[in-house]
């Protein structure tokens, strides 16, 4: 009864969400089925069922190894990182009330990039002195900490008279990002040939580091954001009307802003620490989500998470297969596909006006 009275897009929202979830799951299954190593569908199903005690006997041991130790953690990491970047994008655009905002604007990406680039360029000598596990952890930890520190800096710079001004934060973010990329430019000048290539690849992003242990570290952080993010939907919807209007509706704007920044920093920090910089997902995905449904955050937050997950899983599957046995950095694919897509979106939007 109630649903019929609402405008059509809202009334059909639950089924659309289901469709989106189904499509993302389908994308994950396709991504599991493709790759450099031959793994036909029968072998895939057989290997997937093996741990459940169902032995179809249609797969070889090496196929099971590739599925369980390489492809599955990788598809899961792609889905988690895509989801985290997607929801962070929707949170950023909601927080800044600006469709051109992206998670990087709070400084987290450039801070993480400085942390990682410093480890790549400076740490070669003293990392060797550390035990292997600590050496391997240095880069993601530095990226995560760098992202957190830079976010805190942007947040601090935007504080005026004890209040955080969101528009000041946006400008501070732009300035800090410019500063961050200048710092990376300087590091590139100091770097030797191999460090330079390491840096270039890191800045293009890759899901090649996907292992169960990487997932064990990153998944809880990203799942936390995916679970808590949608809870802010109603308050972000109120914020769409303006800061003071949201305040009149009973939203503690300062607290909402702190929570958004914390969630974005957590999600993007974890994603960048594990996979490097993956561009355009956070910017483009919320736009697609809004076009598929409504502008309400009750739709865009979960829908951006699902869309981000599905798209990054597909982008990574392309990266793994297009140039096999080598692979293309996934960040190059998302930016390559994302930028023209974004332009088409803009064209169609202005044509409708």
């Amino acid at each position, binding site marked *: 009864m109630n649903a019929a009275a609402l405008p059509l897009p809202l009334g059909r929202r639950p089924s659309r969400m289901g469709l989106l979830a189904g499509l993302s799951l389908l994308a994950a299954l396709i991504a599991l089925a493709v790759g*450099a190593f031959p793994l036909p569908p029968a072998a895939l199903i057989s290997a997937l069922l093996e741990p459940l005690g169902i032995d179809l006997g249609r797969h070889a041991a*090496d196929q099971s190894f590739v599925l369980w130790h390489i492809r599955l953690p990788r598809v899961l990491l792609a889905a988690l990182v895509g989801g985290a970047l997607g929801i962070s994008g929707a949170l950023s655009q909601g927080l800044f009330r600006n469709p051109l905002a992206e998670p990087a604007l709070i400084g987290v990406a450039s801070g993480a990039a400085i942390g990682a680039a410093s480890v790549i360029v400076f740490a070669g000598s003293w990392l060797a002195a550390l035990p292997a596990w600590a050496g391997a952890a240095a880069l993601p930890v530095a990226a995560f900490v760098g992202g957190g520190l830079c976010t805190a800096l942007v947040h601090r710079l935007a504080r005026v008279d004890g209040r955080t001004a969101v528009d000041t934060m946006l400008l501070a973010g732009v300035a800090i990002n410019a500063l961050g990329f200048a710092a990376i430019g300087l590091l590139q000048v100091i770097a030797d040939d*191999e460090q*330079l290539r390491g840096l270039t690849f890191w800045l293009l992003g890759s899901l*090649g580091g996907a292992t169960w242990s990487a997932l064990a570290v990153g998944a809880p952080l990203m799942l936390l954001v995916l679970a808590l993010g949608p809870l802010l939907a109603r308050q972000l919807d109120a914020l769409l009307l303006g800061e003071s209007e949201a305040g009149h509706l009973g939203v503690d704007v300062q607290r909402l802003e702190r929570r958004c920044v914390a969630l974005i920093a957590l999600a993007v920090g974890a994603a960048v620490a594990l996979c490097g910089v993956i561009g355009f997902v956070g910017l483009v995905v919320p736009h697609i989500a809004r076009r598929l449904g409504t502008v309400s955050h009750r739709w865009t937050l979960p829908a951006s998470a699902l869309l981000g997950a599905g798209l990054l899983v597909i982008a990574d599957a392309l990266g793994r297969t297009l140039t096999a*046995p*080598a692979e293309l950095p996934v960040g190059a694919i998302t930016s390559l596909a994302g930028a023209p897509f974004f332009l088409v979106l803009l064209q169609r939007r202005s044509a409708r006006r």
Partner: protein
Amino acid sequence: MRPLLMFGVGALLLVLAALPALAAEPGRIVALGGGVTATLDALGLGGAIVAVDASSHPPAKNPGVPRVGYYRQLSAEGVLALRPTHIIGPVGAGPAAAIEQLEASGARVDLLPPVKSVDGARARIEAIGRLVDRAAQAAGVLEAFDGELARAKAVAAGSGRSPRVLFVFVHGGASLQVAGRGTAAHAMVTAAGATLAGDHEGYRPLTAEGVVVARPDVILATPRSLAGVGGEDALWKNPGLAATPAGQKKRLVVVDDVRLLGFGPETGAVARELAEAFHR
């Protein structure tokens, strides 16, 4: 009957004892790094190489061999799809997760320390010979290697001079760089009995004034770097180079980068070629 049986058993034991001495099956090898690939090829294992990285020249016998990309950004699944039994490359091959996954798959992974000197090249040829059970072939390669190095020395001693050589290189599409102390080029120029013109550490961008001060007698470059500046004529148009002894006599030596800087089995021969070119 009994002596015959004992003779038979004895013969069988002898054959069994000799088996490990026969070269083991080389298996399916993924070779990473130009020096490692060239060494395996020189040890007669070019046919066993099922993939190389982006920095290697494919083995002569196997020119269409698949490429697994940059050795620090390997795709574990891509490499495993080639069903390798043995992966040989430099320390630093990665990412770490991919190396872990390759080892866990049951393939043998041997990562060798990076080589930046002629002695290091010798040691690596020996090490690879042991790794792939081709120690005898490695000894043969090293004998030729040492012979070439001795000829390089003789050429240099015969001329009685030590010409100043400036090595220019294009790093990853950036501007032209000049090699200094501690670079692979430094080791090769020294092995050829010449002096590296460049008194800094590592690589530095080429500046007109810096080149004049360096006073090179010869310019050494790779084909790719030369193409990067637009060919030999464009190189001599560089305002600094034109004012040097090398620029006035247009003395340019061009050597392929994997041969020149890869520290593989050809390093000895390259040193001799360089010595002949520098001391002409």
